[in-house]
């Protein structure tokens, strides 16, 4: 039986169509939208929480979305080891829901940032990066106002001990510089996984870098890794 990918739509999600297109048209996988009021995730093998401004994000990014009916099901799905990928606002929602540690602050310079950045792959033994090598550098777009990842010292130690940092902002050569940390994130963190390694949150948008026509295909390899690990399509 072919595997199925679910893309959750919250009110205010605006990368839902992009994620759907990336999975369905570019990767050729069976994909369906999941409305936030649903609570049944049976038949879903991979969950994508797309970017956007859930509920307008007037309070704090993701702070209201975590109370949506579907989030209980998402937590159960994740706890049972189901793979979940939260991109941008999806990452913020996963933090608010407690599936990943830490919190998001406004970008250090208090302005929205949309541009291509470089991230260094810190692990190649995760299901999201198995087709990559440690130290590889990807060029991916970011587009966020609240991407300044924060975690306290104890939390950071724990992240490092458990090897949970998957991506860091770097320059094109993979070096961390003053300018490469675009939003002021603790330890230049751009993406992390949970301890079990099945939940990923990342600020850059791999789904926006899947086609040559649009300038970069670097995002595709994450899904290729994931698809081969999960034997999708």
């Amino acid at each position, binding site marked *: 039986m072919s595997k199925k990918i679910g893309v959750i739509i919250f009110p205010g999600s605006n990368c839902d169509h992009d994620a759907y297109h990336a999975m369905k048209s570019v990767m050729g996988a069976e994909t369906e939208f999941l409305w936030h009021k649903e609570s049944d995730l049976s038949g879903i093998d991979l969950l994508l929480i797309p*970017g956007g401004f859930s509920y307008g994000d007037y309070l704090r990014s993701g702070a209201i979305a975590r109370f949506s009916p579907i989030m209980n099901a998402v937590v159960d799905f994740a706890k049972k080891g189901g793979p979940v990928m939260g991109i941008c606002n999806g990452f913020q929602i996963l933090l608010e829901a407690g599936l990943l540690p830490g919190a998001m602050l406004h970008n250090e310079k208090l302005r*929205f940032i949309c541009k291509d950045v470089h991230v260094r792959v810190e692990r190649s033994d995760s299901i999201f990066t198995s087709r990559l090598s440690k130290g590889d550098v990807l060029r991916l777009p970011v587009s966020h*106002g609240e991407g300044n990842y924060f975690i306290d010292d104890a939390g950071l130690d724990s992240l490092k001990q458990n090897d949970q940092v998957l991506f860091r902002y770097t320059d094109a050569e993979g070096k961390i510089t003053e300018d490469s940390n675009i939003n002021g994130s603790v330890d230049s963190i751009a993406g992390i996984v949970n301890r079990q390694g099945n939940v990923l949150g990342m600020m850059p948008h791999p789904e926006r870098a899947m086609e040559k026509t649009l300038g970069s295909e670097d995002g595709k390899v994450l899904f290729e890794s994931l698809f081969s690990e999960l034997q999708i399509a």
Partner: protein
Amino acid sequence: MSTKTIKEPEVTLDLAIEHGLNEEEFEKIKEFLGRTPTFTELGVYSVMWSEHCSYKNSILEIKKLPREGEQLLVDAGEENAGLVDIGDGLACAFKIESHNHPSAVEPYQGAATGVGGIHRDIFTMGARPVASLNSLRFGSMDNPRVRYLLDGVVRGISDYGNSFGVPVVGGEIYFDEAYEGNPLVNAMSVGIVKHGETASAIAEGIGNPVLIVGASTGRDGIHGATFASEEISEESEAKRPSVQVGDPFTEKLLLEASLEALKTGAIVGLQDMGAAGITSSSSEMTARGGEGMTLDLDKVPMREKGMSAYELLLSESQERMLIVAEKGREQEIIDVFEKWDLNAVVIGEVVEGDKLTYLKDGEVKAEIPADSLVLGGGAPQYEREATRPKYLDEVQNADLSAFNHPKDHNEILHKLLKSPNIASKRWVHEQYDTTVRTNTVNGPGASDSGVIRIKGSNRGLAVKTDCNGRYVYLNPRRGGQIAVAEAARNVVCSGAKPVAISNCLNFGNPYKPEVYWTFKEALGGMGDACRALSTPVTGGNVSLYNENPKGAIFPTPVIGMLGIVDDIENHVMTPGFKNKHDIVYYLGAKRRGLGGSEYLKAIHNATTGDAPELDLDFEVTLQNVLLEAIREGKVNAAHDISDGGIITTLSEMAIFSGVGANVSVKELNGSIYDVLYSEAQSGVVVTVPREEARALEHFLDSKDLPYEELGAVGGSRLIIDEFVDQSVVDLKESYESAIPKAMSQ
């Protein structure tokens, strides 16, 4: 009919004048009604007959613009936006609109709601917005108030557009003292819809229910349309309550719910509530359908208590729409809006007759023939007195040879690259989401126009906003021609065929004969160019009364150009140099005349001379030949020559790619100042691989298009004869750092 309550003031000529109407108009209203209007009716007429809604002082000139074209699917002005056939069973709805006055007093909300309003115009037609652009004008960046306005406007566009989820793919920003105190904020939205799935802004079918959907109605933005129709003055600050407040989240829900509701097939017509809210949507839809409408204002979901009929009708609360449903199917629509947690309430119905009737507290508060309110119906249309401005002789005859030109071209070049009109706008663009919806092929910045691909098609769209107000000021007719010609050239440089325009006509007070003359001339020029280039006008917006206490702004008819890329994989062109050893060519008209140039402004602080030269026939040839060359893969980079002249064009091609070039401009006969800095029209720089250079020359010869070989790409420096020798890194530093530095003051 007893409609007066104790609170309502007596309707007199003085009150009408206070509402922005004149005596003649007040008499006309009495004639239409056969009696003195009620207070509510006076409010309704005053907004509908404001310049903003009625175009009363501009429509007679606008009608002279060419509006015919094979690809146009609706006539200009007939629906909320123009609709153009783009092939593959798809159509493009696009429009540009101003939000100048609100942005002058409240830049953040003014700009944000400008973005919201224009997107609503697009999805009201059933089209999903896929790209947005803007065109901004401010005073000098040395003025802290200007930096405050720029910051607020950019944040407003950013917060609203990013949340709504439509990428900004292009735009332009100019700074000049002429816009001090009266910035221009024009926003454009581009949407795509399948043929046969478009919606119409019509109310018809007696007995069909009328629904208000979306946000609740509050007291914000009352008389916004009237405010937009008067000059900015020192008292304008007190009009801040006339500025609407935006909520992009609700707009996003409204978008999704509207498109989903349209799919039910239960919608007869819908219109967004922009200026003059319930009044304009109900009267325009009703006038189009030719029947009547009765609305019970008590049923309107309200944000605050105790709102009067007058306030409800004139409120410009954002993120609302009026829908006429098929009788008996209204619940299907309500269900969709409820799914998206939005209001959808039946507030009235389409009725026999021709009257619009508004009820409140069980009383008739207004009863008006719908047709008497609207453009094309009873709304007044004026031809104003026109006088050629005296300053024109002075500037056009100015002796430009009297300027003492500085000797060091390297220094001039750096000054030009640092001029905020030329310098990189990255500081602005990076605050906008430019890649959401995963269609952006060329974003803002390093390209002559924004290019998006169309999913499910091999085609793409190239879009551009353009106008050099300085040219229009110096020569209104030619300036109008150039605005269109340059926008089209930009689109061609990206590999697209220009097909149609939308326009946003920003001018001063039309009651001033010199302003009105300029308006007429500039539109005449636009019409000339639109006819020559076969790019009809699909619609747009007029913003008059753009003045500050010192006088009118530069006349600024901003063009929103739509072009079609036939083959998105192979035809898209960018301006950056590609490979070392590529040959650099100049194609086009003679480089001569410094009138209106950025060189004169940045180096001599002068806005004078005649507008740059333009021969429309030659322009058409150049664009056709260039497009053919791009489509056939005969060039690998193309960049239009505009602000700053060929020297900045070459610099930008180097800066965008990080690669230098060694060129000579000596074959472009003329004074070196003319050659390097003239903004003469119809000129582009292209590059081609060395081994294909002869083939390009043969092609250009066969088309009789003048060209010159300038040199070759390569190295880390830009070298232009003995005049310029600069490292690309240094050029980039000047180009990139100017605006961030100014904004960090």
